């Protein structure tokens, strides 16, 4: 499973699912355009350090688009400071 850290969370992409996703709506919806497609798979188009510093603005748009218009490959984990809820 492909994953990378954001400022306060982590994005995980099941790239096998991307292979059969024709539209890849996550690419277009991303405001800072940090994702790219390579051989049918979605991955980071910029370096991970920049993403972790805040280049990914955690708008959650990619996740919604992927879940509803794509193949349900991308999910975002946003833990709370204490996972007790």
């Amino acid at each position, binding site marked *: 499973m492909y994953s990378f850290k*954001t*400022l*306060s*969370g982590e994005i995980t992409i099941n790239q096998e699912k991307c292979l059969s996703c024709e539209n890849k709506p996550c690419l277009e919806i991303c405001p800072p355009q940090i994702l790219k497609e390579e051989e049918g798979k979605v991955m980071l188009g910029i370096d991970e350090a920049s993403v972790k510093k*805040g280049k990914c*603005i*955690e*708008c*959650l*748009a990619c*996740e*919604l688009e992927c879940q*509803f218009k794509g193949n349900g490959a991308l999910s*975002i984990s*946003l833990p*709370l*400071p*204490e996972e*007790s*809820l």
Partner: protein
Amino acid sequence: MTKLMEHQSKDLFKKEGINVSPGEVVQTGEQAKKAAQEFGGAVAVKGQAFITSRAKAGAIKFADNADEAGKMAEEILSLNIKGKQVEKVLVEQKLSLKDEYYAGVIINDALRSPMIVFSSMGGSGIEEIAEEHPDKVVYHPINIREGLKEYEARNILIDAGIPSGQLLGLATLLVKLYNTARKYEARSAEINPIGLTEDNKLFAVDGRVVVDDNAVFRHPELGIEVAREMDHPPTDLDRIAYKVEANDYRGTFFFMQLETDTSDSAGYVGFHGCGGGGSMMGMDALMRAGFKVANFCDTSGNPPASKMYRAAKIILSQPHIEGYFHSGSGMASQEQYHIARGLVKAFREANLSIPAVIRFGGNSEEEAKEIIENYTKDLPAKIEVYGRDTSVNYAARRLKEIIEESK
């Protein structure tokens, strides 16, 4: 503004050289009895709570002996003040006082400076004393660059009619109080009463320091967990929410748990506003619609969707809430779709089953409405979404109606 308990405030006074009665903080009746035995004689047993007029609330009692002190401590520890159990009592040697005064150092926003307030009459009900005897109260602004000089303190006391024999001791105390306030960057530091004992010694009998929220990070020694003005010690939810804010500089996230016990299910809702003014309007509208607000959350300053998600998740985690109400401001400059996406993620994770009304007010609100409408339609809850053209009162009334319909 972060309030410190009486015993914490007194620790600060003591460090600055102000006399405080010998005392011990305890958590059981047995411990209180033991402390009273060590002091010998009469003691004061004082519940530590963030309220004024504790004596009227039954949280301050006077015991003649150790057995009595133990029983009184148990009584006080069984008190529930504003929904929060009293967890600690301060057992102090009882002082025999012949006079009481009030002194406070308060940041006066209008004057943009600290101000000394001194009253030659102190004790319980100081607000009423100030109203009934304005001649006893002196207000004196302090030049923050110069600080409070001893001669200046004496002049304040002379203006308040303090006899010459008490000037030196009280002036020294005022300077020490001012220094305490400055050292810990207090919005206010009050001693009420300053007690004058039979042998002419001055004591801080009761007191309260309130630290500026924005200065708390410079004072780890104070051990403040949540830098917020609260009427209760922080709850688990308060702590978690504060850490979200502390670890994420993007936008603001103010959360406060208003009700700690919602088990009576008396019409509680979770409230999520955006922007101070809009949030106040939202709270008012909910109250007018007959709700009780279980928690207050205000996210503003263009926070990311991830922060909105965490806010919604924390709000929804409070048990027994019957509805979720989000109301933005009249016209916020922040993109409303960030709010929408955060809410959708939280609602979907919770498989939201309680009714929700979302009222957006700001940029891209049509897009935000579409996000909520399109991505929550398969959830069990009835969710209605509005824009700024809908009044906040109408939105609150709709929440009431759909909660009733869903019962």
